[in-house]
């Protein structure tokens, strides 16, 4: 991704003014947070914020002076009924002189574009939603910081060669040399596309003695030197997705700047920047790293809450990705986990290793489906698809899940925990009653642990004619009395009377006990 740096414009008054800083700030659905926790702009810079309320509650966006206790300010609106009455009439916008810009109170799914000029005084300006109860978590910081100085007298030297890491350029003869007019590090793409290197040299002025931080990202390798000493090293063949950074103390005044870069093949990217105590991250390259674009920080995700399986199985009923909306997760001691669907009355997922991370559901409003935390996730029969089916064509494709309908022939009855607290799921299909349980052998936490899941179904009562039980969808390879699923997840499945019918592994369903094993194939 290559983006041009914000251009500096000259206003009619002759003062330099930055281009408008444009942000899209959204409310996070069900989380009582803005999606940006920080926005960085320059003093006096025009700012345009597209504020989108995708949440199900009203929210506003209120900018305050540095040092404002925004939570206290919002709470003050409700300190007594008289205050609340006034606040209500003001649509929960506090009557407070520290507020210098604000949106209106957006209803759910409304948006508003805010345009203002950033304060001239550098500082950290908090922003907050002042609807009652929101200010504790729905907040962020607008950082007003000037840009630092750029490079001066920037020169380049282009070298040709094929390298896997940076060569010693001092021993090579440049193919071409010259001046970089706009003093921004850049790679001109009209010369060579592959197998070249560039050394940039110039002067960088430190406005005062102090610490500075340098940032570098490149595809392929690069390193950055100040006064002949390496500060950041990003050498080797790699994409530019990760920014490397390092702090260094500089004396006041000009310093020798040197940046070495090489391109092997493929994508060409080179980003460099620096930051001081009194100025924001200031690009030294013509291209701007996507992470610097807009000068905003994304809200952090939640800390994980992994549910640890110890001596007994752990049950987790919630929205599990791949198990529909009535999924029941079970983490068994022994490192195998399943998700069973109380909608399709079928095994929805099997996976090895860690069970599940509850942080999505146990933070904020808990929206969304959580994926299994472990690995080798197998979905034997597709999402929310029953195994029992009446058909004279067992090779036919099974029906797709229709979220608006229930499988009327099935009745979910519940589960019973045995002495080891392992569940037996109970349901009926037509006139038959089914009890389904699982046992584990081996160690699913180890790749070579020979972990095996044994599924036992006890079917009593009468089954309809032409009743089939589908174990899994293929493709399969029949081998050593079992069937190897050869799709993305390689599992070995065994069951008495199992047979291949087209892409399906099926059993003619009949009352009695049915045992199916699942094992990760090497």
């Amino acid at each position: 991704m290559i983006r041009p740096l914000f251009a500096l414009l000259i206003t009619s008054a002759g003062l330099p003014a930055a281009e408008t800083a444009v942000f899209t700030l959204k409310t996070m659905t069900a989380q009582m947070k803005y999606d940006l926790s920080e926005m960085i702009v320059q003093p006096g810079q025009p700012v345009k914020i597209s504020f989108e309320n995708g949440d199900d509650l009203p929210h506003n966006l209120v900018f305050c002076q540095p040092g404002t206790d925004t939570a206290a300010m919002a709470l003050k609106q409700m300190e007594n009924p008289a205050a609340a009455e006034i606040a209500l009439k003001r649509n929960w916008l506090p009557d407070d002189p520290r507020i210098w810009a604000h949106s209106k109170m957006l209803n759910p799914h409304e948006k508003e574009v805010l345009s203002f000029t950033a304060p001239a005084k550098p500082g950290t300006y908090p922003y907050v939603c002042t609807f009652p109860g929101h200010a504790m978590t729905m907040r962020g910081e607008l950082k007003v910081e000037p840009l630092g100085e750029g490079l001066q007298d920037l020169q380049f030297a282009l070298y040709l060669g094929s390298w896997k890491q940076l060569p010693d350029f001092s021993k090579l003869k440049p193919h071409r040399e010259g001046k970089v007019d706009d003093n921004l590090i850049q790679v001109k793409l009209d010369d060579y596309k592959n197998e070249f290197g560039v050394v940039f040299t110039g002067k960088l002025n430190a406005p005062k003695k102090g610490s500075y931080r340098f940032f570098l990202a490149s595809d392929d390798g690069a390193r950055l030197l100040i006064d002949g000493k390496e500060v950041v090293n990003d050498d080797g063949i790699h994409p530019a997705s990760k920014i490397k950074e390092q702090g260094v103390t500089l004396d006041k005044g000009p310093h020798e700047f040197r940046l070495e870069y090489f391109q092997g093949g493929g994508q060409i990217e080179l980003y460099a920047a620096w930051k001081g105590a009194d100025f924001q991250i200031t690009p030294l390259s013509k291209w701007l790293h996507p992470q610097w674009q807009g000068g905003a920080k994304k809200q952090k995700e939640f800390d994980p809450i992994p549910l640890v399986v110890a001596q007994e199985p752990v049950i987790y009923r919630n929205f599990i990705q791949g198990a529909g909306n009535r999924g029941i997760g079970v983490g068994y001691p022994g490192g195998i986990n399943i998700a069973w669907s109380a909608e399709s009355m079928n095994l929805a997922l099997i996976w090895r290793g860690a069970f599940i991370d509850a942080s999505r559901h146990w933070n904020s409003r808990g929206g969304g489906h959580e994926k299994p935390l472990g690995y080798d996730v197998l979905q034997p029969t597709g999402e929310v698809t029953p195994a029992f089916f009446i058909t004279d064509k067992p090779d036919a494709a099974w029906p797709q899940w229709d979220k608006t309908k229930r499988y009327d022939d099935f009745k979910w009855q519940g589960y019973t925990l045995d002495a080891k607290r392992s569940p037996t799921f109970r349901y009926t299909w037509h006139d038959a009653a089914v009890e389904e349980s699982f046992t584990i052998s081996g160690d699913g936490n180890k790749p070579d642990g020979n972990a095996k899941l044994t599924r036992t179904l006890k079917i009593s009562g009468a089954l309809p004619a032409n009743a089939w039980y589908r174990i899994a969808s293929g493709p399969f390879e029949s081998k050593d009395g079992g069937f190897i699923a050869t799709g993305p997840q390689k599992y070995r499945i065994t069951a008495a009377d199992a047979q291949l019918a087209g892409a399906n592994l099926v059993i003619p369903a009949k009352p009695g006990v049915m045992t199916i094993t699942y094992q990760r194939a090497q």
Partner: protein
Amino acid sequence: MKRFFSLLLAFSPSLWAVDPVEADFYKITTFETPKETAIEVGSIDLMPDGRLVMGTRRGEIWIVSGAGSSDASQVSYQLFASGLHEVLGIAYNPKDKNIYATTRYEITRLKDVDGDGRADVFDNVNDSWGVSGDYHEYAIGSRFDKAGDLWVTLCLTGSFSSAAPFRGWALRIKPDGTMVPTCSGIRSPGGIGFDADGEVYYCDNQGPWHGACTLQHLVPGTFQGHPGGNAWYNLAPNMGTRPIDPIPEAFQGDRGRKEARPGGDPDRMVAERERIKELLPPAVYLVHGKIGNSATAIICDTSGGKFGPFSKQLFIADQSHSNLSRVFLETVNGIKQGVVFPFRSGFKSGLIGGRMDEEGRVFAGGSDRGWGARGGKPFCFEKCEWTGKTPFEMHEMRAKPDGFEVTFTQPIDPATAGDLKSYSMREFTYAYREQYGGDEVSEILPKITAAKVAADGKSVRLTISPLTKGHIHELHLDGVRSAEKLPLLHSVGYYTLNEIPK
């Protein structure tokens, strides 16, 4: 500075003593909870031996012993079940001695067959409503009603629409597990409970078609106001034909430019009641921002006086304000209506579940997760008890054909209570419309023409002109003093006048 101010108060002749505060009359105790989890209380019920059973947002069920003790350190917890999908309804069944949990998509009966204190059988009692995977589709369940039924109120999808069957409905589950669709028009329920007669109510939350949170009477067959789930009348033949929809936004002009609609605003509950025969207006508007912002549990005082002077009244918990409000209800012209008063604030987190025991102890708890709460703690489990001192409060407020009768918990000072200047009233309503929430509109400042103190000195009869059907009548009694010259602990009440008595 603060001390100086208190000194001033102390020497002020009209305020000889420091004014009473809520905590003088109702004490809140905060319990320690197990460290290994977050006890985000979603529901509470009583066991016959005095223990509590609590369901949590994390899907756990805890049996709590010793919470009734005067020594809070006597409390202990036993994990009865875990891994359920959010327990926002819990009910102990005295008939079969089992615990019933209302979870996201199912009512589950939990049995402890081996008697080790942990559930081992989890039976699906009923799961006949839909769940689309949307986070907002909460299912809030009741205790057993007098017929032995459980009630479930089902939040709309995203709190706006109905992507799965019976989202936006109240359902009853009979003892045999069958389901009866019972009321339509639910938006975003926060709690469900009974009055002293066993009538069923739920709290809805501010949003589309709701200018404020409300306390609503679940009369079987009624439409409770939000049309989002009415497509499911086709699955509820017992409910008859689908009611006509309310007008989404009758006003087509630009309110920002103060344009008026010729003929006035028809988007009023009182007007739509004339058109939509199934529409039952909220019994009480829990005035937004003043009483609460997120109404949840409904707790009836059935302690026969052990919780103070408010026997048989309802206490409404609020998640956002972390408080309890107090409701007195009456039946006027065949429907429920009444008044809400502030009662007790200062709970440590957003209240969600609550229950009173026979000794008049209110157990309540909740969390601030996803919706901020004033309390400030992420979750809490607390107890609220009467200290034995009777606050000077309005006791009841009843509608009369030409005004209101207000009774008090203590004798009133006839001079101030008989003085018209001691009172002020303001009437307003909310637009009944599709947009989210809404302002207090159509304000009327009526005249209070008489304030007649009863001979026993415990009530006052106010004559008001005009009374406005469908409006909330906000009464302030700032000048009224008790016989002991004390001001009211809470000097405001909000009466929802659905009907004017004949």
